[in-house]
């Protein structure tokens, strides 16, 4: 590869903003995941985290003037979609069983 990295000078505002936003997204995702009991909300929070990571990639991509970050994001979206499908299926299955969306209802498996 090119030994000289075509990098933007550090502190590019857009990059910084993007990174900040991505960190916030990720953090919100985590906090939401930890604090919410509704499985659908929890899933959405994981999506938030995914998107946070994706945003970080795009920002870094801009910093490095490189497109692969954006390419990755497309794949992330695809995988997230697959996961969403899976998650919804699973949530429906679980809901059918216990008539609740609360994740706390499922704690049968634990250290006795």
């Amino acid at each position, binding site marked *: 590869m090119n030994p000289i990295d075509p990098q933007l000078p550090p502190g590019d505002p857009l990059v910084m903003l993007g990174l900040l936003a991505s960190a916030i997204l990720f953090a919100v995702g985590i906090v939401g995941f930890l604090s919410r009991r509704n499985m659908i909300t929890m899933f959405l929070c994981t999506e938030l985290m995914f998107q946070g990571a994706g945003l970080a990639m795009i920002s870094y991509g801009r910093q490095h003037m490189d497109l692969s970050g954006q390419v990755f994001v497309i794949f992330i979206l695809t995988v997230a979609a697959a996961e969403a499908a899976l998650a919804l299926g*699973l949530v429906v299955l679980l809901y059918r069983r216990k008539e609740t969306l609360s994740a706390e209802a499922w704690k049968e498996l634990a250290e006795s």
Partner: protein
Amino acid sequence: MVDMSQTVALLAPEIVLFVASMLVAVLGLSRSTGIRSLVPWVCVAALVGSILALEAVWTPERIQGARLLFPMLGKYGKALIALIGIGLVAVSAGSIDRRYEEAVARGRASFDALRVVRGEYYAFLLLSLTGAMLVMSAPDLIWLFLGLELVSLPTYIMVAVARTGRRSMEAAMKYFFLGALATAVTLYGFAMLYGATGTMQLIPMRDALAEQAAGAGLSTTALLGTILTVLGLCFKLAAVPMHFYAPDVYEGAPLPVTAFLSFTPKIAGFSALITVLGTVGWSGHAMVDHDGVRIAYEGLPQPITAVLWMVAALTMLLGNIGGILQTSLKRTLAYSSIANSGYMLVGVIVGPKGGIGAMYLFMLGYGVMTVATFGVLAALERKGEEVDSFESLAGLRASHPGLAFLLTLSALSLLGVPPLFGALAKIVLVFVAFEGGQASLAAVLLLNTAIGAVYYLRFVGAAVVNPTNAKSQEVVVVPHWWPKTAAVVAGLGLIVLPAFLSRLVDASATTVDGYVDLGEAVASDEQR
């Protein structure tokens, strides 16, 4: 540029598996019992086929063209996956859909394509194995990520569908949500690695990091990115601090899936781990001391070593002390799986100079032991349910001496009694730890081996020593020969493999052939 056709050709094993997975998904829906029962055979054939394909396509030129960080990793690793995959198929065969199939066979139920899961179960199993294989030939982070997801997503479903019940659903839920969390962490780590180096490709990434290392040292972004990636991957390994799901999920999941979970994500995770760590490198790093002098040292960058040391030590410890308290077989084996991840992490820390080879050697042993142990357990049932307590195993040697012997064999091998293969692989691991300057980890490993002995002995005690009780009298052998065969073959392997230890050590050492460590990359840079 890379010759695409060559790269695709390299993926022949994966392609074989992928095609087979499509095939079994369809075959599983057939109305014909005969065709449906062909499914495991197809899987085995596909796995054998993938090994053959691997042998056929894995030529030096192609590898050269693929520009892989660990060019030879796939050769050993994919064969290992396929081999153990056969065992895992055999462990599964017979128990998936069994009651429904029995009902159909006796005419109590009519065949309903919507109710059978056999096809998709095996399809997912093969897909997951495909993912694990793909991880091994990832040239960049995107590929790596997709490979990892291909490993995980099918397993989420396998946990849920293989045997519907509250516990497996709960397991699936936990596995899925926590898995997603971990994936997000990995992903963020990937993003930071990308940010630190400006490339998704692993070899340029390694070069960029080498440049950093040769200069002022790795950037904080690179370091944190690596750490986050490692921690995210810890979920796959079931390593501290991402191991908490494992006992619950392993216990809740159907037995064959538990077997699958304790091997496939692990090997995929370890492969991903060394791939990521390979960009950081096990050499060429330096530390600035108080006088501003740079001191070069062997091994991963110090913070990463520190983290991995801690992770490895805690993983072994928490795994083993957790295992002592259990009454459920699968839960115990979950903790055992955690502890074994800890052992293997020692090899990762030591790195390409023996460590990774030893890790893969141990992985082979672990896979064989997993197949043997779960094979025995899958061959048993009590009142139509799988056997999941030590009590149920009591007196096994009276009713089923062969199975009891096999279980003893695999438990002793897990425990580390020479000359069984598990012990020898562990000795090699301890040895490379010494060699890699990780004597303290070697000591921790040995200590943990002793702690682990407590619960492995419980298998032995239950199966061979204890007299039959009311609960274990009802234990019968399932009317399928698959799991039993898997256990027998794997058990024999534990006895026979030591004879080929030397060759296996050499073979597993080839995983790092062609890998250029950071220090060497720096040196070659300077030469240029």
